[in-house]
């Protein structure tokens, strides 16, 4: 048993997703073990409600279970797809509306960047993103968090904060320019 768990830990997301497409429950369990903490952490940050977090987390993995055949590792990382699904569904749950950002794997597909495939590079990337996020000036950071974790649009943020729409747009765009640098 320990050997098989170890084997799964060494197996790529792509290979596990192919097994899931063949309705292999143990492969789904392995993907859950690998990605559920990242997804659950995000859901807790957005929803702050235990039962809602569980509902969305299960929903994401059930969607994977039913649609794994449509996933193609060459066209995007599985973890990214799962995170997009989790965020979109959590915000839809929070706002009782869709984010306007579909989570279909087709639309998420992009030529894979092999630099993002190794654990070391992933960890380095996440550290750089965390660095960028922590260094955003206070106003930029809070506007970004309203958009990211509450799913608010430019206009909604302007209305809540009382800032001019143009100022909100400029500050969010500047925050995103900083974020893009972490990926260069």
């Amino acid at each position: 048993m320990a050997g098989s768990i170890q084997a799964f830990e060494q197996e790529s997301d792509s290979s596990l997703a192919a097994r899931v497409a063949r309705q292999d429950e143990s492969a789904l369990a392995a993907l859950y073990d690998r990605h559920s903490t990242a997804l659950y952490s995000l859901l807790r940050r957005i929803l702050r409600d235990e039962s809602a977090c569980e509902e969305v987390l299960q929903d994401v993995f059930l969607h994977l279970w039913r649609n794994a055949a449509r996933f193609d590792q060459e066209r995007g990382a599985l973890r990214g797809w799962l995170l997009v699904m989790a965020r979109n569904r959590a915000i839809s749950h929070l706002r009782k509306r869709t984010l306007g950002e579909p989570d279909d794997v087709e639309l998420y597909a992009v030529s894979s960047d092999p630099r993002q495939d190794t654990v070391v590079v992933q960890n380095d990337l996440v550290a750089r993103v965390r660095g960028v996020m922590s260094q955003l000036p206070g106003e930029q950071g809070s506007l970004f968090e309203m958009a990211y974790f509450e799913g608010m649009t430019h206009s909604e943020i302007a209305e809540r904060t009382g800032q001019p729409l143009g100022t909100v747009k400029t500050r969010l765009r500047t925050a995103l320019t900083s974020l893009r640098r972490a990926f260069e």
Partner: protein
Amino acid sequence: MMNGHPQFDEAFDLYALGALDAQERGEMESHVKQCRQCAEKLAEARQRIAVVALSVPEVRPPEQIKKRLMDRVHSETQAAATGARRRHDDVAAPAKGTAGVFDFFRRPSLAWSFAACAALLAVVFAVRSSHLQQQLSQQQQQLASLQDSAAHDRLVSGLLTGNDTQRVLLTEAQGPSHPEGRVYYHPSRGLLFYANNLPALPAGRAYELWVIPAQGAPIPAGTFQPNARGEGSVILPALPSGVTAKAFAVTLEPAGGVPLPTGPKVLVGAPA
């Protein structure tokens, strides 16, 4: 936006973030449908935005969530297996005089008779009800999105029996004609497709159906995976309305499908 392209590359990140207001979002969506370069930029932005989620402090989910998830998955698997056995029994012992839909395709000289259409309808409806069947997961999604089931059935029925429906036989692009497909197509009512004798797919690949319009690029009409007997289908895929088709084709593509054909043609056919 200037000439359709976003003025700033950050617009892709803003879209992925969900911060654009409705009009800007609509402009972006319209543009990326036509601009492959911008579609790629948008997909990259989605990945960037996804990684931001990993900057959140980690919290492990309670163990019982996994158990409840796996219980649900296991229940679905069991239900699907039970359904598949029932369907297999139904196919293995058909009523006298009612051939299976795929047997229908094996008789090239068979006329488009009412009886055959009725047999097709029966199978179409049986397929529509098979929500847990793995190889029809794509059709399952399409069907689930149709809120009016009766309207859907009328569409299928109308397509199969309509005098103005194009009925096109698709045969193997090269070599002896073993795999065969049938397309029922009407520019405004939609498309039905069935095939048999299809070779098993390599891992990570799918068959993709295409409508070849009289003018312009091929239009993707859905991906599918054949069952163990080499039978596959696409039912009422999302297609632009009013397109005159000069041909139909099936190609071998990556499992998620592609916007334009890249792989070898497996089946091709043109209206008479």
